[in-house]
């Protein structure tokens, strides 16, 4: 009985010692790791400082002006190029009509507003511009090309509206449905586009 007890205590002592040993070394390893990471952080911070300085150095206005003179020849902005109102910006000419028939079909379904947003989600890009486009008429929509995001969807959308295209009835129906939304300015058009989304 006594021997069994002694064995138990001995085992406990040995295992406790072993666990302590393991934990100690594990902690030491973690501490080493921590120090290494901290050192690395500091080194990287220093590097960032240097890179920042270098970036600024490379962005010296004098140098940029020289690079511009050699490669870009950009001129300072003239007063003509600064417009106060979006309406002052002349509109782009319409692109020629290239109408994929399936888009036209999607545009002519004329869903109610609630269904429209659902359709927008399901049908993807192409059904989106159709609704505001119908309400605004093609030329205003063409001006949307200024915004790069809508640039990709634009030709298709504009094409769907072109009167005298494959299905002339469709745009008329759409225009009727949203007749009250005729935007008076480009700003209004933008907000309408945002709403239909």
């Amino acid at each position, binding site marked *: 009985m006594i021997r069994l007890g002694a064995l138990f205590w001995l085992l406990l002592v040995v295992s406790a010692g072993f666990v302590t040993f393991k934990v100690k070394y594990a902690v030491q390893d973690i501490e080493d790791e921590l120090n290494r990471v901290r050192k690395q952080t500091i080194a990287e911070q220093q590097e960032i400082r240097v890179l920042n300085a270098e970036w*600024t150095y490379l962005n010296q206005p004098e140098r940029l*002006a020289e690079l511009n003179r050699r490669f870009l020849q950009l001129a300072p902005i003239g*007063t003509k190029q600064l417009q106060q109102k979006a309406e002052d910006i002349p509109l782009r000419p319409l692109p020629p009509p290239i109408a994929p028939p399936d888009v036209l079909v999607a545009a002519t379904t004329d869903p109610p507003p609630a269904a429209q947003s659902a359709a927008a989600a399901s049908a993807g890009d192409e059904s989106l511009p159709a609704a505001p486009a119908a309400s605004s008429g093609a030329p205003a929509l063409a001006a949307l090309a200024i915004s790069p995001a809508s640039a990709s969807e634009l030709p298709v959308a504009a094409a769907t509206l072109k009167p005298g295209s494959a299905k002339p009835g469709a745009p008329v129906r759409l225009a009727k449905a949203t007749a009250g939304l005729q935007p008076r300015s480009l700003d209004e058009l933008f907000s309408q586009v945002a709403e239909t989304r």
Partner: protein
Amino acid sequence: MQSMQRLDENPCRPRHFKPPPPCAPVVSDERAAQLLETCRTRLLATAALFAVVFIVVALRLAEIVLLSGGSAESHAGRIRPIAAPLPVRADILDRTGSLLATTLDSPSLYADPRQILDAGEATRALSTVLPQLDAAEIQAKLTSGKSFVWLKRHLTPKQVYDVNRLGIPGLQFEHEERRVYPFSDLAAHVVGYCGIDNNGLAGIERALDERTKSSRQPIELALDARVQFILHEELSRVITDFSAKGAAGIIMDVRTGEIIAMVSLPDFDPNHPGAMNPAEAKERIFNKITLGDYEMGSAFKIFNTAMALDGGTATMTKTYDAVHDIRIGRFTISDYHGKHRMLSVPEIFMYSSNLGSARMAMEAGAERQRAFLARLGLLRPVPIEFDEVSKPHFPSLWREVNVITIAYGHGIAVTPLHVATAVSAIVNGGILRPPSILKLPPGTAPSGERVLTEKTSEQMRKLMRLVVEYGTAKLAAAPGYVVGGKTGTAEKNSGGHYQEKKLVSDFVAVFPMQDPRYLVLTLVDEPHGTKESHGYATAGWTVVPATSRVIQRIAPLLGVQPVDEASPAITKALAVESLQGKRIESY
């Protein structure tokens, strides 16, 4: 046997001790009992001691594990064996966040020549990556047999990389820090520079020396590096075009007093302040904007006219004699481009008539003139963060001749910063605000002091617009930005004599005049006329066209919307009633 029995009961005995058969003389019972008693007592005491210690340990354990609620862990987390080394000085940024000054690790290269295996080879390799080193000198150093020689101080990170890549044993780097100004001379006078011991010696580095050292929070200046560059470039062009001695310019936000750009030429590279030719160093480090006292010439008519209008001694329709010269003592005052007729206040201002201005000032009197200039802060140093500010020079005794000359900007010398600050107050509706080189939180302005009425301010805006429309500053027009301003050309005074050939030409411009946002003051020191300027070196031909170019380039950067200058709203806002319907003669 009895004693043995007792021995057996002794708790001190080893557990499996079998007492040997009694063959040795047994100690007497009494002694044995005494011994055992002592033994037991000691044992008890020891056990008690151990028990106490263990209880303490157990309690402490329980406290740490159960009761402390994790504070021990957070305590352990707080101990940071390595703290990030902080730079010696805080960074300085411009208003857009570009670095104007930063502190970088800049290691210095040294060698232990005893460890160098092949000095010749090492020298050759070093001169490929550090071509500016003298090969013979390096060779001599590397063969000297010393244990430490400096090879080069303050290497760039790329040079360190290159040297490391050579893999020459015996080369070492010493960690050092160095102030770096990535834009070199662009904002030299504003940022200033540091000495070898990283102490600020000029500009913001000196003014906020303590602040850069105590806090690592970067200092944000009101300066805009892009605007600064444009002003710098155009002023350099003026110097080249008119072979001038120097030039200076300042761009200020008239609503807040923030200094958007401040250039003084010639300038210096703050990265290498010691590299300057000692003869030129003083001239180059001198900040003309805050330290240079200049007689601003006709630009002072802004103050003179504002004084007369604000004090009520003159009105926009009142006329003054510009026919007869004024003789006072040994002086004769006459007009540069005389109209030789009675001139109204707008005409006096537009044609820059000395006679008219002098008569306006004489009418107002010395007391009023002095008080008005003092109110505009022109008779005391400008309150600004810089250490380098100079006191204005003005007559201690304000006699009539002083009144007359001060009316058109002679006999009083102030810094361009004075003029910029005061003119800002005149055009911004009449509130004088201290200029600030530090960025203010957007949308705020320091509390100012009302120095003139809003009505006078509005009248002054109209008058300044006239000067650009019809007067001496027609070349300042920047279509769309409704520039207004006033030129000034003064002969330099040296030893009490005015030198006809040595001019200081200056121009204070404000735009857009219907709702002033920015002030551009430019000044050129000793310009010489050219064929293009028809031999003139006056402001109208030198700094005025430069200002026009500056405004056209900076306005889009500063977000000033161009307007149609001919639109009814603008013309109505800036119309001078007394000149309505009259044909305005050109200057």
